[in-house]
C-alpha cells in the first residue's frame, strides 16, 4: 500500500515538474511547430465571412510553410466554428488557448463576438491579431496583446459620405441601417458628416436584422425624394433594396460598405447594381493586386476552397502575414513577450493587397487607408475611383 502511495506521489510530482517545465516556454511552440488559433463562423449564413477569413489565414500560413515555416517551425492552424453564437465564440477561444495551446490568435468572428472575448484574451495575454470586424472598442483603450488590422466602420462611412457629398452637392440624403452594433457605428459615422457638412437628410430607416422584404422601406425612401442613398445592409439586404429601387423606378446615387462588397452580389443586383459606390481598404479583385492575390491563392489552396474567397480573405491574409512576420523577427526562440513587442514594431509591412501596415507603442490599430470603388455590371466587378 505504502509502495503504491509512494509511486503515486512520485508520478504526481513528475507530472507537476513536467507542467512547470512546459510553463517556462510559452504554450503552442515546440521545436518543429507553432500553433496559431482562430475562431470563426463556419456554419450558417455568416459562414460567408468566416470561411473567407479563414481561407485568407490559410493562404498566408501555407505561403509561410512553403517557404520553410517560421525559422524552421511549421505553422499549425487550429480553426474552431462558433456558428456566430457568442457563447460558442468564448468556448472556442478557450479551447484554442487551453486545449490546443495556441501560440497566437487570428480572427475573431463578428464584432459582438470579438468584444465578448476581449476580457478573455486580455487575461490570457496571448498575442492576437484581429481582422474580421474592426470596431473601435477593440483598440480603445489599447490592450497590450490585441492588435487590429483594418479600418473602423465609422471612418469608412465618413470617407464614403464625404466623397459622395463632394460629388453631389446640395442633394437630399437617405440612409438605412441594421438594428445592431454594426448599424449603430455606421449611423454614428454618417451623423458626424451630416453635422459637419450640414447635409439634408430626408430619410432615415432602421431595419430589423434578418429582414428580407424591403418594399415599404424603399417606398418611403422614394417618397422622401432622396437622391443619394446609403444602403447599410450587408449582403442579401442590399440586393433586395436595389431590386426594390429598380421596381420603383428610381435610381439614386447609392453607396455601400465593405461588409457587403462581395462580387456575387453584383450579379444578383443585375443592372440595378451598376455604378454603386463602395468604400473599402483592400484592393478590388479586378485590379492587378487582386489578380495577383488570386493567382497566389491558386497555388496554395485546394480547388474546392477557391470559390470561398472574397474580400475577407484579403483582410485575413494581411493579418496573418503581419503576425507571421512578427513571430519571424523574434528569431529562434519566439515568446509571447517578444511577439507582442515585435507586433508593436510592425512598420510598413507590405501585403500587396492593402496599404502597408504599421502599429506602434500604444497604437494597436493599423488605421488602413481607404479607397472608393464603383461597381461595373458588365464585368461584375468593382473598379477603383480616383
Amino acid at each position, binding site marked *: 500500500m505504502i509502495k503504491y502511495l509512494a509511486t503515486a506521489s512520485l508520478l504526481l510530482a513528475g507530472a507537476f515538474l513536467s507542467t512547470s517545465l512546459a510553463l517556462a516556454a510559452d504554450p503552442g511552440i515546440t521545436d518543429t511547430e507553432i500553433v496559431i488559433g482562430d475562431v470563426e463562423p463556419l456554419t450558417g449564413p455568416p459562414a460567408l465571412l468566416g470561411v473567407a477569413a479563414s481561407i485568407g489565414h490559410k493562404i498566408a500560413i501555407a505561403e509561410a510553410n512553403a517557404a520553410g515555416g517560421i525559422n524552421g517551425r511549421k505553422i499549425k492552424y487550429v480553426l474552431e466554428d462558433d456558428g456566430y453564437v457568442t457563447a460558442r465564440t468564448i468556448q472556442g477561444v478557450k479551447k484554442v488557448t487551453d486545449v490546443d495551446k495556441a501560440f497566437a490568435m487570428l480572427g475573431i468572428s463578428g464584432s459582438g463576438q470579438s468584444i465578448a472575448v476581449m476580457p478573455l484574451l486580455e487575461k490570457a495575454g496571448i498575442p492576437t491579431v484581429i481582422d474580421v470586424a474592426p470596431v473601435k472598442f477593440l483598440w480603445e483603450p489599447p490592450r497590450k496583446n490585441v492588435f487590429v488590422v483594418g479600418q473602423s466602420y465609422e471612418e469608412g462611412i465618413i470617407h464614403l459620405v464625404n466623397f459622395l457629398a463632394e460629388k453631389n452637392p446640395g442633394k437630399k440624403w437617405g440612409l438605412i441601417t441594421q438594428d445592431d452594433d454594426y448599424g449603430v457605428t455606421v449611423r454614428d459615422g454618417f451623423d458626424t458628416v451630416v453635422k459637419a457638412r450640414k447635409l439634408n437628410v430626408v430619410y432615415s430607416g432602421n431595419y430589423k436584422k*434578418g429582414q428580407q422584404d424591403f418594399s*415599404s422601406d424603399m417606398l418611403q425612401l422614394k417618397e422622401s425624394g432622396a437622391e443619394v442613398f446609403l444602403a447599410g445592409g450587408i449582403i442579401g439586404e442590399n440586393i433586395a433594396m436595389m431590386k426594390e429601387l429598380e421596381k*420603383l423606378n428610381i435610381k439614386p446615387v447609392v453607396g455601400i460598405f465593405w461588409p457587403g462588397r462581395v462580387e456575387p452580389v453584383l450579379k444578383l443586383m443585375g443592372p440595378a447594381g451598376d455604378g454603386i459606390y463602395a468604400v473599402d481598404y483592400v484592393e478590388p479583385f479586378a485590379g492587378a493586386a487582386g489578380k495577383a492575390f488570386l493567382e497566389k491563392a491558386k497555388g496554395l489552396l485546394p480547388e474546392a476552397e477557391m470559390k470561398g474567397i472574397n474580400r475577407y480573405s484579403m483582410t485575413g491574409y494581411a493579418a496573418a502575414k503581419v503576425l507571421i512576420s512578427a513571430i519571424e523577427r523574434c528569431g529562434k526562440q519566439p515568446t509571447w513577450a517578444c511577439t507582442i513587442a515585435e507586433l508593436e514594431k510592425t512598420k510598413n509591412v507590405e501585403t500587396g493587397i492593402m496599404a502597408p501596415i504599421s502599429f506602434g507603442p500604444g497604437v494597436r490599430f493599423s488605421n488602413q487607408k481607404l479607397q472608393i470603388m464603383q461597381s461595373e455590371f458588365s464585368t461584375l466587378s468593382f473598379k477603383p475611383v480616383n
Partner: protein
Amino acid sequence: MQYFMQLLISGLAIGAIYGLIAMGFAVIYKSTGLVNFAQGEMTMITAYIAWTISTTVSGNVVVVALGAILAAVVLGLIIERVVMRPMLGEPVFATVMVTIGLAVILRSSINFIWDAYPHGLDVGFGRSIVRVGPIGVRTGQIAVIVTLLVLLAAIWAFFRYSKIGVAMRAVAADDRTALLMGISATRVHALAWAASSVIAGIGGVFFALSYDLSPAMFQLGLKAFPATILGGLDAVLGSGVGGLLIGITENLAGGYLGSGMKEVAGFAMIIVVLMIRPFGIFGERDIERV
C-alpha cells in the same frame, strides 16, 4: 392613395409567400396533429433544388417548375417515411422535437451541398417589371398572388369533394375511427407531408424568384408560422389568408409607422386577434369533454 396601393401590392406579394408556407404548416397539423418546425428548411431545400435544376438541366420555366414540384414531393415522402413514420404513436412532444432535429440537419445541408453565397433563380420569367401608372410590380409577384388564390380554390375543392380529401379530414377528426373505417393513416400522413412540402416549396421558389436564395431563407418559416396561427392551425385555407394579412400589415406598418415597426406590427396584430378569437380567425374551437 398611390402610396397605399404600392404598399398593399408589395404586402400581398410577400404575404402570398408567407401564406403558401403557412398552408404547408396547416396541412401537416390538420392531418397529423404535429407542428413541423422544419417547414422553413424544407421550403429552402426545394428552392435550392429548383435553382440547381435551372443552372444544370434547363432554365425553362416549365422544366424548373415540374422539377421543383417533383423534388418537393420526393423530399416530403422521404422525410415522412424515414424520419416521421417511426415516431408514429410516440408522444407528440417527442415527435415535434424530431422535426427540430430535422431542421438542424436540413439547414446545415445548404452550406454542405451548395454554399453560403446568395444566388439568383433565373428562369427567364418573373423578373420583368409591369407598370400600371406609377405602380411597379414584378411578374413573379403577380404570379405568386395568383398561384395562392388558385391553390386556395383547388384545396377547398379537394377537401370538399375528393375521396382522399374527405379521408384526410376523417383522420384529422378522429384517427382511430378513421382507421376502423378502412382509411390508411400512414398513407394519409405520407400524402400530407408530400402536399405540405409542395405547397410550401412553391412559396420558396417564388421567394427565390422575387428575392434571392441564401442560407438564411429558412427564416421564412418563422414568418409563416405566426400566419398559420393567425388563420387557425387546423385551417389550411385560413392559413393562406393569414399569410396575406401578415404581409399587408407588415408593409402598411413599415410604410406608415417606419421600418422599425414592421416586425412588431405583425406580432401585435396576432396577439390582438387571438384575444378575440383564441383559435385563430378560421380555426375550429376545440370542444373539451372531461
